Protein backbone atom coordinates (compact mmCIF):
# COMPACT_ATOMS: atom_id res chain seq x y z
CA UNK A 1 0.00 0.00 0.00
CA UNK A 2 1.12 3.55 -0.53
CA UNK A 3 1.06 6.60 1.54
CA UNK A 4 0.62 10.27 0.76
CA UNK A 5 4.19 10.71 -0.25
CA UNK A 6 5.65 7.97 -2.32
CA UNK A 7 8.78 6.26 -1.18
CA UNK A 8 7.76 5.88 2.44
CA UNK A 9 6.40 2.42 2.94
CA UNK A 10 3.65 1.79 5.47
CA UNK A 11 4.62 -0.53 8.27
CA UNK A 12 2.00 -2.94 9.48
CA UNK A 13 2.16 -3.48 13.22
CA UNK A 14 0.32 -6.66 14.16
CA UNK A 15 -0.54 -7.10 17.83
CA UNK A 16 -1.86 -10.65 18.15
CA UNK A 17 -0.99 -13.01 20.97
CA UNK A 18 -1.98 -16.23 19.25
CA UNK A 19 0.82 -17.32 16.92
CA UNK A 20 -1.59 -19.43 14.89
CA UNK A 21 -3.82 -16.44 14.23
CA UNK A 22 -0.80 -14.33 13.42
CA UNK A 23 0.30 -16.94 10.85
CA UNK A 24 -3.13 -17.12 9.28
CA UNK A 25 -3.39 -13.36 9.10
CA UNK A 26 0.05 -12.95 7.59
CA UNK A 27 -0.44 -15.71 5.03
CA UNK A 28 -3.64 -14.19 3.82
CA UNK A 29 -2.31 -10.66 3.73
CA UNK A 30 0.57 -11.84 1.60
CA UNK A 31 -1.86 -13.73 -0.63
CA UNK A 32 -3.67 -10.45 -1.16
CA UNK A 33 -0.49 -9.07 -2.60
CA UNK A 34 0.48 -6.80 0.27
CA UNK A 35 4.24 -6.90 0.64
CA UNK A 36 4.76 -4.21 3.32
CA UNK A 37 6.86 -4.85 6.38
CA UNK A 38 4.88 -6.70 9.03
CA UNK A 39 6.03 -6.35 12.65
CA UNK A 40 4.30 -8.85 14.94
CA UNK A 41 3.88 -8.65 18.73
CA UNK A 42 2.37 -11.28 20.96
CA UNK A 43 1.60 -9.10 23.99
CA UNK A 44 0.57 -5.56 24.76
CA UNK A 45 3.59 -4.53 26.76
CA UNK A 46 6.11 -5.19 23.99
CA UNK A 47 3.80 -3.65 21.39
CA UNK A 48 3.44 -0.47 23.45
CA UNK A 49 7.16 -0.16 24.03
CA UNK A 50 7.68 -0.49 20.26
CA UNK A 51 4.96 2.01 19.39
CA UNK A 52 5.96 4.61 21.93
CA UNK A 53 9.65 4.14 21.50
CA UNK A 54 12.45 4.58 23.98
CA UNK A 55 11.25 8.01 25.09
CA UNK A 56 7.73 6.69 25.64
CA UNK A 57 6.35 9.62 23.63
CA UNK A 58 6.05 7.98 20.23
CA UNK A 59 8.50 10.40 18.61
CA UNK A 60 10.23 7.41 17.00
CA UNK A 61 7.24 7.09 14.63
CA UNK A 62 6.81 10.76 13.93
CA UNK A 63 6.83 11.36 10.16
CA UNK A 64 6.21 7.68 9.57
CA UNK A 65 3.12 5.78 8.47
CA UNK A 66 1.77 2.93 10.51
CA UNK A 67 -1.16 0.59 10.23
CA UNK A 68 -2.08 -1.28 13.37
CA UNK A 69 -3.82 -4.64 13.43
CA UNK A 70 -5.03 -5.12 16.97
CA UNK A 71 -6.42 -8.11 18.79
CA UNK A 72 -8.40 -7.03 21.87
CA UNK A 73 -7.71 -10.09 23.93
CA UNK A 74 -4.07 -9.87 24.89
CA UNK A 75 -2.60 -11.83 27.80
CA UNK A 76 -1.28 -8.90 29.82
CA UNK A 77 -3.83 -6.19 29.11
CA UNK A 78 -6.93 -5.40 27.14
CA UNK A 79 -6.42 -4.24 23.55
CA UNK A 80 -8.76 -1.37 24.41
CA UNK A 81 -5.97 0.09 26.55
CA UNK A 82 -3.64 0.06 23.56
CA UNK A 83 -6.30 1.61 21.34
CA UNK A 84 -6.87 4.40 23.84
CA UNK A 85 -3.17 5.11 24.26
CA UNK A 86 -2.49 5.12 20.54
CA UNK A 87 -5.34 7.51 19.75
CA UNK A 88 -4.23 9.79 22.56
CA UNK A 89 -0.67 10.19 21.35
CA UNK A 90 -0.03 13.11 19.02
CA UNK A 91 2.57 11.27 16.99
CA UNK A 92 0.75 8.02 16.25
CA UNK A 93 -2.93 8.85 16.56
CA UNK A 94 -3.35 9.14 12.81
CA UNK A 95 -2.41 5.52 12.31
CA UNK A 96 -5.46 3.51 11.24
CA UNK A 97 -6.32 0.81 13.75
CA UNK A 98 -8.01 -2.35 12.53
CA UNK A 99 -9.46 -4.33 15.42
CA UNK A 100 -9.50 -8.04 14.77
CA UNK A 101 -10.97 -10.18 17.49
CA UNK A 102 -13.20 -13.11 18.24
CA UNK A 103 -15.67 -11.00 20.21
CA UNK A 104 -18.82 -9.88 18.45
CA UNK A 105 -20.26 -8.16 21.52
CA UNK A 106 -22.08 -5.05 20.30
CA UNK A 107 -21.04 -3.02 23.33
CA UNK A 108 -17.44 -3.88 22.71
CA UNK A 109 -17.72 -2.91 19.03
CA UNK A 110 -19.36 0.41 19.89
CA UNK A 111 -16.75 1.12 22.49
CA UNK A 112 -13.90 0.53 20.03
CA UNK A 113 -15.44 2.82 17.45
CA UNK A 114 -16.04 5.42 20.14
CA UNK A 115 -12.39 5.24 21.09
CA UNK A 116 -11.30 5.87 17.52
CA UNK A 117 -10.89 2.46 15.93
CA UNK A 118 -11.12 2.74 12.21
CA UNK A 119 -12.34 -0.77 11.43
CA UNK A 120 -13.65 -3.63 13.56
CA UNK A 121 -13.55 -7.15 12.16
CA UNK A 122 -14.81 -10.25 13.94
CA UNK A 123 -12.67 -13.32 13.45
CA UNK A 124 -15.16 -15.94 12.40
CA UNK A 125 -14.49 -19.54 13.20
CA UNK A 126 -15.46 -20.35 9.68
CA UNK A 127 -12.09 -20.19 7.94
CA UNK A 128 -13.48 -19.43 4.54
CA UNK A 129 -14.95 -16.23 5.83
CA UNK A 130 -11.91 -15.46 7.89
CA UNK A 131 -9.53 -15.90 5.00
CA UNK A 132 -11.85 -13.86 2.83
CA UNK A 133 -12.02 -11.10 5.41
CA UNK A 134 -8.26 -10.91 5.68
CA UNK A 135 -7.87 -10.98 1.93
CA UNK A 136 -10.40 -8.20 1.57
CA UNK A 137 -8.47 -6.33 4.19
CA UNK A 138 -5.35 -6.87 2.18
CA UNK A 139 -7.03 -5.53 -0.93
CA UNK A 140 -8.40 -2.72 1.12
CA UNK A 141 -4.94 -2.03 2.47
CA UNK A 142 -3.52 -2.04 -1.04
CA UNK A 143 -5.69 0.83 -2.14
CA UNK A 144 -6.09 3.06 0.88
CA UNK A 145 -4.00 6.07 1.58
CA UNK A 146 -2.39 5.84 4.95
CA UNK A 147 -1.68 9.33 6.31
CA UNK A 148 1.73 10.21 7.59
CA UNK A 149 2.11 10.78 11.31
CA UNK A 150 3.04 14.17 12.75
Amino acid at each position, binding site marked *: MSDQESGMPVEIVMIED*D*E*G*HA*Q*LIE*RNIRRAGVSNKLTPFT*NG*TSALSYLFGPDGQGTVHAKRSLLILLDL*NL*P*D*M*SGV*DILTKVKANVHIKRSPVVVLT*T*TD*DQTEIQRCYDLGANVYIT*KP*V*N*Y*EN*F*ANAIRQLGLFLSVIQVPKNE
Partner: protein
Amino acid sequence: MSLFSWVNVLPAGRRTVLLLASAVLVLAGLVGASLWMVGETYNRTGELDRAQRVLDSASQVLGEIRDAETGQRGYLLTQDPAYLDPYRSAAAALNEQLDALDASAPSADKGVVQKARQLINAKMLELQRTIDLTKNGKVSEAIDRVRTGRGKILMDDLRSTLLPLTDRARGNVRANLEATRANVTWIAIATGLGALVIVLLTGISVILSVRQIRGLEAAQKEIRSLNEGLEQRVLDRTSALTQANDEIQRFAYIVSHDLRSPLVNVMGFTSEIEAAVAPIEEHFAAPEDDKKLEGARTALAEVPDSLKFIRQATGRMDRLINAILKLAREGRRELVPEHVKLDTLLEGVIGAVQHQVTEAGAEIKLAPTYLDVVSDRIALEQVFGNLVDNAVKYLADGRPGRISLSGRRRFGKVEITVEDNGRGIAPQDLERVFELFRRAGVQDKPGEGIGLAHTRALVRRLGGNITLTSDLGVGTRFIVELPNVLEGSGVG
Protein backbone atom coordinates in the same frame (compact mmCIF):
# COMPACT_ATOMS: atom_id res chain seq x y z
CA MET B 1 -47.49 0.48 100.71
CA SER B 2 -48.32 -3.20 100.39
CA LEU B 3 -51.95 -2.29 100.62
CA PHE B 4 -51.75 -0.83 97.15
CA SER B 5 -49.16 -3.17 95.69
CA TRP B 6 -51.92 -4.97 93.83
CA VAL B 7 -52.30 -1.82 91.76
CA ASN B 8 -48.97 -2.45 90.06
CA VAL B 9 -50.12 -5.84 88.93
CA LEU B 10 -52.88 -4.34 86.86
CA PRO B 11 -52.22 -3.58 83.23
CA ALA B 12 -51.42 0.05 82.43
CA GLY B 13 -54.79 0.83 80.91
CA ARG B 14 -56.75 -0.44 83.91
CA ARG B 15 -54.44 1.38 86.25
CA THR B 16 -55.17 4.67 84.58
CA VAL B 17 -58.91 4.02 84.75
CA LEU B 18 -58.65 3.16 88.44
CA LEU B 19 -56.71 6.34 89.13
CA LEU B 20 -59.16 8.49 87.26
CA ALA B 21 -62.12 6.82 89.01
CA SER B 22 -60.62 7.51 92.42
CA ALA B 23 -59.94 11.06 91.37
CA VAL B 24 -63.56 11.54 90.42
CA LEU B 25 -64.70 10.03 93.71
CA VAL B 26 -62.42 12.21 95.78
CA LEU B 27 -63.45 15.29 93.90
CA ALA B 28 -67.13 14.38 94.24
CA GLY B 29 -66.58 14.02 97.95
CA LEU B 30 -64.86 17.37 98.18
CA VAL B 31 -67.50 19.08 96.10
CA GLY B 32 -70.24 17.53 98.24
CA ALA B 33 -68.50 18.67 101.38
CA SER B 34 -68.11 22.17 99.97
CA LEU B 35 -71.75 22.33 98.96
CA TRP B 36 -72.84 21.14 102.37
CA MET B 37 -70.66 23.81 103.97
CA VAL B 38 -72.19 26.40 101.70
CA GLY B 39 -75.64 25.25 102.85
CA GLU B 40 -74.50 25.51 106.41
CA THR B 41 -73.21 28.98 105.76
CA TYR B 42 -76.55 29.97 104.29
CA ASN B 43 -78.23 28.72 107.47
CA ARG B 44 -75.79 30.52 109.67
CA THR B 45 -76.23 33.69 107.71
CA GLY B 46 -79.96 33.34 108.12
CA GLU B 47 -79.53 32.90 111.85
CA LEU B 48 -77.21 35.86 111.89
CA ASP B 49 -79.80 37.92 110.11
CA ARG B 50 -82.50 36.99 112.58
CA ALA B 51 -80.36 37.72 115.56
CA GLN B 52 -79.35 41.02 114.04
CA ARG B 53 -82.99 41.86 113.48
CA VAL B 54 -83.78 41.08 117.09
CA LEU B 55 -81.12 43.50 118.21
CA ASP B 56 -82.28 46.02 115.71
CA SER B 57 -85.92 45.76 116.68
CA ALA B 58 -85.14 45.87 120.37
CA SER B 59 -83.12 48.99 120.02
CA GLN B 60 -85.75 50.52 117.72
CA VAL B 61 -88.40 49.80 120.33
CA LEU B 62 -86.41 51.43 123.06
CA GLY B 63 -85.63 54.29 120.75
CA GLU B 64 -89.31 54.88 119.94
CA ILE B 65 -90.20 54.89 123.63
CA ARG B 66 -87.44 57.39 124.32
CA ASP B 67 -88.71 59.54 121.50
CA ALA B 68 -92.15 59.34 123.00
CA GLU B 69 -90.73 60.21 126.40
CA THR B 70 -88.86 63.13 124.93
CA GLY B 71 -92.05 64.39 123.30
CA GLN B 72 -93.93 63.95 126.53
CA ARG B 73 -91.29 65.71 128.51
CA GLY B 74 -91.18 68.58 126.08
CA TYR B 75 -94.91 68.97 126.04
CA LEU B 76 -95.01 68.84 129.76
CA LEU B 77 -92.41 71.56 130.02
CA THR B 78 -93.68 73.86 127.30
CA GLN B 79 -97.25 72.80 126.57
CA ASP B 80 -96.26 73.30 122.98
CA PRO B 81 -98.29 70.85 120.84
CA ALA B 82 -95.31 70.62 118.48
CA TYR B 83 -93.71 68.21 120.98
CA LEU B 84 -96.60 65.87 120.60
CA ASP B 85 -95.57 65.01 117.02
CA PRO B 86 -92.63 62.85 117.91
CA TYR B 87 -94.78 61.25 120.62
CA ARG B 88 -97.51 60.39 118.20
CA SER B 89 -95.22 59.04 115.47
CA ALA B 90 -93.33 57.00 118.04
CA ALA B 91 -96.51 55.62 119.49
CA ALA B 92 -97.65 54.70 116.01
CA ALA B 93 -94.38 53.03 115.06
CA LEU B 94 -94.11 51.13 118.31
CA ASN B 95 -96.55 48.41 117.40
CA GLU B 96 -94.83 47.78 114.14
CA GLN B 97 -91.53 47.46 115.86
CA LEU B 98 -92.95 45.19 118.48
CA ASP B 99 -94.39 42.96 115.82
CA ALA B 100 -91.06 42.89 114.12
CA LEU B 101 -89.40 41.97 117.39
CA ASP B 102 -91.93 39.30 117.97
CA ALA B 103 -91.36 37.91 114.52
CA SER B 104 -87.63 37.74 114.77
CA ALA B 105 -87.38 36.63 118.37
CA PRO B 106 -86.59 32.95 118.82
CA SER B 107 -89.43 30.85 120.13
CA ALA B 108 -87.75 30.53 123.46
CA ASP B 109 -88.00 34.21 123.97
CA LYS B 110 -91.63 34.66 122.96
CA GLY B 111 -92.56 35.01 126.61
CA VAL B 112 -90.07 37.79 127.04
CA VAL B 113 -91.53 39.67 124.15
CA GLN B 114 -94.99 39.19 125.61
CA LYS B 115 -93.89 40.65 128.89
CA ALA B 116 -92.15 43.50 127.12
CA ARG B 117 -95.32 44.26 125.27
CA GLN B 118 -97.23 44.48 128.50
CA LEU B 119 -94.63 46.76 130.00
CA ILE B 120 -94.57 48.91 126.93
CA ASN B 121 -98.33 49.20 126.92
CA ALA B 122 -98.26 50.21 130.56
CA LYS B 123 -95.54 52.75 129.86
CA MET B 124 -97.39 54.28 126.91
CA LEU B 125 -100.52 54.44 129.00
CA GLU B 126 -98.57 56.26 131.63
CA LEU B 127 -97.22 58.73 129.12
CA GLN B 128 -100.66 59.25 127.66
CA ARG B 129 -102.04 59.98 131.12
CA THR B 130 -99.51 62.70 131.72
CA ILE B 131 -100.08 64.17 128.29
CA ASP B 132 -103.83 64.14 128.76
CA LEU B 133 -103.47 65.86 132.12
CA THR B 134 -101.30 68.50 130.55
CA LYS B 135 -103.71 68.93 127.68
CA ASN B 136 -106.45 69.59 130.17
CA GLY B 137 -104.32 72.21 131.89
CA LYS B 138 -103.45 70.03 134.86
CA VAL B 139 -99.73 70.42 134.34
CA SER B 140 -98.67 70.16 137.95
CA GLU B 141 -100.62 66.93 138.34
CA ALA B 142 -98.86 65.65 135.35
CA ILE B 143 -95.49 66.52 136.74
CA ASP B 144 -96.43 64.95 140.06
CA ARG B 145 -97.21 61.77 138.22
CA VAL B 146 -93.86 61.87 136.56
CA ARG B 147 -92.22 62.46 139.91
CA THR B 148 -93.69 59.23 141.23
CA GLY B 149 -91.12 57.61 139.06
CA ARG B 150 -93.54 55.00 137.77
CA GLY B 151 -92.56 55.72 134.23
CA LYS B 152 -88.90 55.24 135.08
CA ILE B 153 -89.57 52.01 136.86
CA LEU B 154 -91.45 50.74 133.86
CA MET B 155 -88.57 51.70 131.62
CA ASP B 156 -86.06 49.95 133.84
CA ASP B 157 -88.25 46.88 133.91
CA LEU B 158 -88.49 46.98 130.18
CA ARG B 159 -84.77 47.27 129.77
CA SER B 160 -84.05 44.46 132.14
CA THR B 161 -86.65 42.32 130.45
CA LEU B 162 -85.20 42.91 127.05
CA LEU B 163 -81.61 42.50 128.24
CA PRO B 164 -81.47 38.72 128.21
CA LEU B 165 -83.09 38.76 124.79
CA THR B 166 -80.54 41.14 123.36
CA ASP B 167 -77.73 39.33 125.13
CA ARG B 168 -78.83 36.05 123.64
CA ALA B 169 -79.16 37.71 120.25
CA ARG B 170 -75.63 39.12 120.52
CA GLY B 171 -74.36 35.76 121.54
CA ASN B 172 -76.06 34.25 118.50
CA VAL B 173 -74.50 36.80 116.24
CA ARG B 174 -71.05 36.03 117.59
CA ALA B 175 -71.57 32.32 117.44
CA ASN B 176 -72.91 32.45 113.91
CA LEU B 177 -70.06 34.66 112.77
CA GLU B 178 -67.59 32.20 114.25
CA ALA B 179 -69.39 29.32 112.66
CA THR B 180 -69.46 31.06 109.30
CA ARG B 181 -65.79 31.86 109.54
CA ALA B 182 -65.08 28.24 110.35
CA ASN B 183 -67.25 27.03 107.47
CA VAL B 184 -65.55 29.34 105.03
CA THR B 185 -62.19 28.08 106.22
CA TRP B 186 -63.34 24.51 105.71
CA ILE B 187 -64.58 25.36 102.25
CA ALA B 188 -61.23 26.89 101.46
CA ILE B 189 -59.47 23.81 102.76
CA ALA B 190 -61.74 21.51 100.82
CA THR B 191 -61.19 23.52 97.63
CA GLY B 192 -57.46 23.57 98.22
CA LEU B 193 -57.42 19.84 98.81
CA GLY B 194 -59.54 19.37 95.74
CA ALA B 195 -57.10 21.38 93.67
CA LEU B 196 -54.19 19.40 95.08
CA VAL B 197 -55.87 16.12 94.30
CA ILE B 198 -56.63 17.29 90.78
CA VAL B 199 -53.06 18.41 90.26
CA LEU B 200 -51.68 15.16 91.67
CA LEU B 201 -53.87 12.95 89.59
CA THR B 202 -53.40 15.04 86.47
CA GLY B 203 -49.71 14.72 87.05
CA ILE B 204 -49.92 10.97 87.42
CA SER B 205 -52.10 10.66 84.34
CA VAL B 206 -49.69 12.80 82.36
CA ILE B 207 -46.76 10.67 83.50
CA LEU B 208 -48.55 7.49 82.55
CA SER B 209 -49.55 8.93 79.18
CA VAL B 210 -46.04 10.14 78.49
CA ARG B 211 -44.71 6.72 79.43
CA GLN B 212 -47.14 5.08 77.07
CA ILE B 213 -46.28 7.48 74.24
CA ARG B 214 -42.59 6.93 74.84
CA GLY B 215 -43.18 3.21 74.72
CA LEU B 216 -44.97 3.58 71.41
CA GLU B 217 -42.26 5.84 70.02
CA ALA B 218 -39.56 3.41 71.06
CA ALA B 219 -41.43 0.59 69.38
CA GLN B 220 -41.81 2.69 66.23
CA LYS B 221 -38.16 3.58 66.22
CA GLU B 222 -37.23 -0.04 66.58
CA ILE B 223 -39.47 -1.01 63.71
CA ARG B 224 -37.96 1.73 61.59
CA SER B 225 -34.40 0.68 62.36
CA LEU B 226 -35.28 -2.96 61.78
CA ASN B 227 -36.76 -1.92 58.47
CA GLU B 228 -33.65 -0.04 57.53
CA GLY B 229 -31.55 -2.93 58.65
CA LEU B 230 -33.67 -5.19 56.52
CA GLU B 231 -33.37 -2.93 53.51
CA GLN B 232 -29.63 -2.78 53.97
CA ARG B 233 -29.44 -6.55 54.19
CA VAL B 234 -31.52 -6.88 51.05
CA LEU B 235 -29.21 -4.41 49.31
CA ASP B 236 -26.16 -6.33 50.49
CA ARG B 237 -27.57 -9.63 49.30
CA THR B 238 -28.66 -8.10 46.01
CA SER B 239 -25.26 -6.56 45.44
CA ALA B 240 -23.60 -9.85 46.32
CA LEU B 241 -25.90 -11.63 43.87
CA THR B 242 -25.33 -8.98 41.20
CA GLN B 243 -21.61 -9.32 41.69
CA ALA B 244 -21.79 -13.09 41.48
CA ASN B 245 -23.93 -12.79 38.37
CA ASP B 246 -21.51 -10.36 36.76
CA GLU B 247 -18.70 -12.78 37.49
CA ILE B 248 -20.57 -15.63 35.89
CA GLN B 249 -21.19 -13.50 32.81
CA ARG B 250 -17.54 -12.57 32.67
CA PHE B 251 -16.57 -16.17 33.20
CA ALA B 252 -18.85 -17.33 30.39
CA TYR B 253 -17.41 -14.65 28.11
CA ILE B 254 -13.85 -15.57 28.93
CA VAL B 255 -14.43 -19.28 28.57
CA SER B 256 -16.26 -19.02 25.27
CA HIS B 257 -13.69 -16.60 23.94
CA ASP B 258 -10.71 -18.58 25.12
CA LEU B 259 -12.09 -21.76 23.63
CA ARG B 260 -13.06 -20.12 20.37
CA SER B 261 -9.61 -18.74 19.82
CA PRO B 262 -7.82 -22.09 19.44
CA LEU B 263 -10.75 -23.25 17.38
CA VAL B 264 -10.03 -20.52 14.84
CA ASN B 265 -6.59 -22.06 14.48
CA VAL B 266 -7.87 -25.60 14.15
CA MET B 267 -10.39 -24.60 11.50
CA GLY B 268 -7.94 -22.27 9.81
CA PHE B 269 -5.03 -24.61 9.51
CA THR B 270 -7.09 -27.63 8.56
CA SER B 271 -8.42 -25.51 5.71
CA GLU B 272 -4.86 -24.48 4.90
CA ILE B 273 -3.81 -28.12 4.71
CA GLU B 274 -6.86 -28.89 2.65
CA ALA B 275 -5.87 -26.05 0.37
CA ALA B 276 -2.36 -27.49 0.13
CA VAL B 277 -3.68 -30.79 -1.24
CA ALA B 278 -4.74 -29.30 -4.57
CA PRO B 279 -1.30 -28.14 -5.82
CA ILE B 280 0.22 -31.47 -4.73
CA GLU B 281 -2.41 -33.41 -6.67
CA GLU B 282 -1.82 -31.18 -9.65
CA HIS B 283 1.89 -31.98 -9.51
CA PHE B 284 1.21 -35.72 -9.43
CA ALA B 285 -1.15 -35.24 -12.34
CA ALA B 286 1.58 -33.46 -14.33
CA PRO B 287 4.94 -34.44 -12.80
CA GLU B 288 6.95 -32.88 -15.61
CA ASP B 289 5.52 -29.43 -15.05
CA ASP B 290 8.15 -27.42 -13.10
CA LYS B 291 5.72 -24.74 -12.14
CA LYS B 292 3.37 -27.30 -10.65
CA LEU B 293 6.34 -28.86 -8.88
CA GLU B 294 7.21 -25.44 -7.38
CA GLY B 295 3.61 -24.94 -6.36
CA ALA B 296 3.51 -28.35 -4.65
CA ARG B 297 6.79 -27.69 -2.85
CA THR B 298 5.58 -24.33 -1.52
CA ALA B 299 2.32 -25.85 -0.36
CA LEU B 300 4.03 -28.75 1.34
CA ALA B 301 6.49 -26.43 3.10
CA GLU B 302 3.68 -24.81 4.96
CA VAL B 303 2.09 -28.04 6.12
CA PRO B 304 4.35 -28.79 9.12
CA ASP B 305 3.64 -25.32 10.51
CA SER B 306 -0.06 -25.83 10.04
CA LEU B 307 0.11 -29.15 11.84
CA LYS B 308 2.09 -27.59 14.64
CA PHE B 309 -0.48 -24.90 15.13
CA ILE B 310 -3.30 -27.39 15.08
CA ARG B 311 -1.60 -29.45 17.75
CA GLN B 312 -0.88 -26.38 19.86
CA ALA B 313 -4.45 -25.22 19.58
CA THR B 314 -5.97 -28.53 20.56
CA GLY B 315 -3.47 -28.79 23.39
CA ARG B 316 -4.53 -25.36 24.63
CA MET B 317 -8.19 -26.26 24.47
CA ASP B 318 -7.43 -29.36 26.47
CA ARG B 319 -5.60 -27.38 29.15
CA LEU B 320 -8.37 -24.83 29.33
CA ILE B 321 -11.00 -27.49 29.77
CA ASN B 322 -8.94 -29.20 32.44
CA ALA B 323 -8.48 -25.97 34.34
CA ILE B 324 -12.21 -25.33 34.26
CA LEU B 325 -12.94 -28.85 35.42
CA LYS B 326 -10.41 -28.47 38.22
CA LEU B 327 -12.09 -25.27 39.38
CA ALA B 328 -15.47 -26.97 39.29
CA ARG B 329 -14.10 -29.96 41.18
CA GLU B 330 -12.56 -27.72 43.82
CA GLY B 331 -15.90 -26.08 44.17
CA ARG B 332 -17.48 -29.43 44.95
CA ARG B 333 -14.90 -30.79 47.34
CA GLU B 334 -16.32 -30.98 50.83
CA LEU B 335 -14.69 -28.66 53.29
CA VAL B 336 -13.44 -30.20 56.50
CA PRO B 337 -13.41 -27.63 59.29
CA GLU B 338 -10.89 -28.04 62.06
CA HIS B 339 -8.96 -25.95 64.57
CA VAL B 340 -6.08 -24.36 62.72
CA LYS B 341 -3.24 -22.45 64.35
CA LEU B 342 -2.60 -19.78 61.72
CA ASP B 343 1.04 -19.27 62.66
CA THR B 344 1.83 -22.96 62.17
CA LEU B 345 0.06 -23.06 58.81
CA LEU B 346 1.67 -19.86 57.51
CA GLU B 347 5.11 -20.98 58.62
CA GLY B 348 4.55 -24.17 56.61
CA VAL B 349 3.64 -22.12 53.53
CA ILE B 350 6.73 -19.97 53.96
CA GLY B 351 8.90 -23.06 54.37
CA ALA B 352 7.70 -24.38 51.00
CA VAL B 353 8.99 -21.29 49.16
CA GLN B 354 12.02 -20.55 51.30
CA HIS B 355 14.35 -22.00 48.71
CA GLN B 356 13.10 -19.80 45.84
CA VAL B 357 13.06 -16.79 48.14
CA THR B 358 16.69 -17.19 49.14
CA GLU B 359 17.68 -17.81 45.50
CA ALA B 360 16.00 -14.56 44.49
CA GLY B 361 17.91 -12.73 47.18
CA ALA B 362 14.73 -11.84 48.99
CA GLU B 363 13.39 -12.35 52.47
CA ILE B 364 10.02 -13.47 53.74
CA LYS B 365 8.78 -12.91 57.28
CA LEU B 366 5.79 -13.80 59.40
CA ALA B 367 4.71 -11.50 62.22
CA PRO B 368 3.26 -13.95 64.74
CA THR B 369 -0.50 -13.59 64.88
CA TYR B 370 -1.30 -15.95 67.79
CA LEU B 371 -4.64 -16.43 66.06
CA ASP B 372 -6.72 -19.55 65.76
CA VAL B 373 -9.42 -20.20 63.25
CA VAL B 374 -11.82 -23.00 62.47
CA SER B 375 -11.62 -23.70 58.75
CA ASP B 376 -10.52 -26.15 56.06
CA ARG B 377 -6.78 -26.64 56.39
CA ILE B 378 -6.09 -27.74 52.79
CA ALA B 379 -8.02 -24.78 51.37
CA LEU B 380 -6.08 -22.36 53.59
CA GLU B 381 -2.80 -23.88 52.48
CA GLN B 382 -3.79 -23.49 48.83
CA VAL B 383 -4.90 -19.90 49.28
CA PHE B 384 -1.83 -18.67 51.08
CA GLY B 385 0.44 -20.90 49.05
CA ASN B 386 -0.82 -19.19 45.90
CA LEU B 387 -0.50 -15.69 47.33
CA VAL B 388 3.03 -16.30 48.54
CA ASP B 389 3.97 -17.96 45.23
CA ASN B 390 2.79 -14.89 43.35
CA ALA B 391 4.66 -12.59 45.69
CA VAL B 392 7.87 -14.50 45.01
CA LYS B 393 7.18 -14.76 41.28
CA TYR B 394 6.49 -11.10 40.67
CA LEU B 395 9.30 -9.46 42.60
CA ALA B 396 10.76 -6.26 41.22
CA ASP B 397 14.16 -6.31 39.60
CA GLY B 398 16.63 -3.97 41.13
CA ARG B 399 15.50 -4.09 44.71
CA PRO B 400 15.70 -6.80 47.35
CA GLY B 401 12.36 -8.46 47.72
CA ARG B 402 10.60 -8.22 51.04
CA ILE B 403 7.49 -10.29 51.66
CA SER B 404 5.67 -10.05 54.99
CA LEU B 405 2.73 -11.90 56.44
CA SER B 406 0.64 -10.64 59.33
CA GLY B 407 -2.80 -11.09 60.82
CA ARG B 408 -5.29 -9.68 63.27
CA ARG B 409 -8.76 -10.30 64.58
CA ARG B 410 -11.55 -7.87 63.78
CA PHE B 411 -15.27 -7.99 64.65
CA GLY B 412 -15.60 -11.75 64.62
CA LYS B 413 -13.36 -12.16 61.60
CA VAL B 414 -9.71 -12.90 61.00
CA GLU B 415 -7.73 -10.68 58.64
CA ILE B 416 -4.49 -11.99 57.13
CA THR B 417 -2.27 -9.73 55.04
CA VAL B 418 0.33 -10.81 52.48
CA GLU B 419 2.39 -7.82 51.51
CA ASP B 420 5.28 -7.50 49.09
CA ASN B 421 7.47 -4.78 47.58
CA GLY B 422 7.37 -6.36 44.13
CA ARG B 423 6.40 -4.91 40.77
CA GLY B 424 2.83 -4.05 41.74
CA ILE B 425 -0.37 -4.05 39.68
CA ALA B 426 -1.79 -1.17 37.64
CA PRO B 427 -5.17 0.24 38.79
CA GLN B 428 -7.01 -0.94 35.65
CA ASP B 429 -5.82 -4.49 36.25
CA LEU B 430 -6.89 -4.85 39.89
CA GLU B 431 -9.98 -6.88 38.92
CA ARG B 432 -8.38 -8.45 35.85
CA VAL B 433 -5.81 -10.40 37.86
CA PHE B 434 -8.64 -12.31 39.56
CA GLU B 435 -10.19 -13.29 36.24
CA LEU B 436 -9.76 -16.76 34.90
CA PHE B 437 -7.02 -17.12 32.27
CA ARG B 438 -6.14 -13.47 32.55
CA ARG B 439 -2.87 -11.93 33.57
CA ALA B 440 -1.46 -8.47 33.84
CA GLY B 441 1.81 -6.62 33.58
CA VAL B 442 5.03 -7.72 31.90
CA GLN B 443 4.71 -11.35 30.81
CA ASP B 444 8.09 -12.71 31.76
CA LYS B 445 7.00 -15.45 34.15
CA PRO B 446 5.23 -18.71 33.44
CA GLY B 447 1.60 -19.03 34.33
CA GLU B 448 -1.85 -19.75 32.95
CA GLY B 449 -3.73 -17.01 34.75
CA ILE B 450 -5.58 -19.51 36.92
CA GLY B 451 -4.04 -19.00 40.40
CA LEU B 452 -5.88 -15.95 41.72
CA ALA B 453 -9.19 -16.97 40.15
CA HIS B 454 -8.96 -20.23 42.00
CA THR B 455 -7.83 -18.51 45.21
CA ARG B 456 -10.74 -16.11 45.21
CA ALA B 457 -13.25 -18.85 44.57
CA LEU B 458 -11.75 -20.80 47.45
CA VAL B 459 -11.76 -17.87 49.86
CA ARG B 460 -15.40 -17.29 49.05
CA ARG B 461 -16.21 -20.91 49.75
CA LEU B 462 -14.56 -20.49 53.13
CA GLY B 463 -17.05 -17.70 53.82
CA GLY B 464 -14.51 -14.96 53.45
CA ASN B 465 -13.37 -12.28 51.09
CA ILE B 466 -10.12 -11.24 49.39
CA THR B 467 -9.19 -7.67 48.58
CA LEU B 468 -6.23 -6.19 46.85
CA THR B 469 -4.41 -2.88 46.95
CA SER B 470 -1.38 -2.12 44.91
CA ASP B 471 0.94 0.56 43.61
CA LEU B 472 2.54 -0.09 40.25
CA GLY B 473 6.26 -0.30 40.76
CA VAL B 474 6.00 -0.17 44.55
CA GLY B 475 4.28 -3.26 45.85
CA THR B 476 1.12 -5.19 46.43
CA ARG B 477 -1.00 -6.09 49.43
CA PHE B 478 -3.56 -8.89 49.57
CA ILE B 479 -5.95 -9.01 52.51
CA VAL B 480 -7.80 -12.24 53.17
CA GLU B 481 -10.78 -11.96 55.49
CA LEU B 482 -12.11 -15.15 57.03
CA PRO B 483 -14.83 -15.88 59.55
CA ASN B 484 -13.60 -17.14 62.91
CA VAL B 485 -15.55 -20.31 62.45
CA LEU B 486 -16.33 -21.88 59.11
CA GLU B 487 -20.08 -22.01 58.83
CA GLY B 488 -21.75 -25.36 58.69
CA SER B 489 -19.10 -26.96 60.84
CA GLY B 490 -20.01 -29.04 63.84
CA VAL B 491 -16.91 -27.84 65.66
CA GLY B 492 -16.78 -25.14 68.32
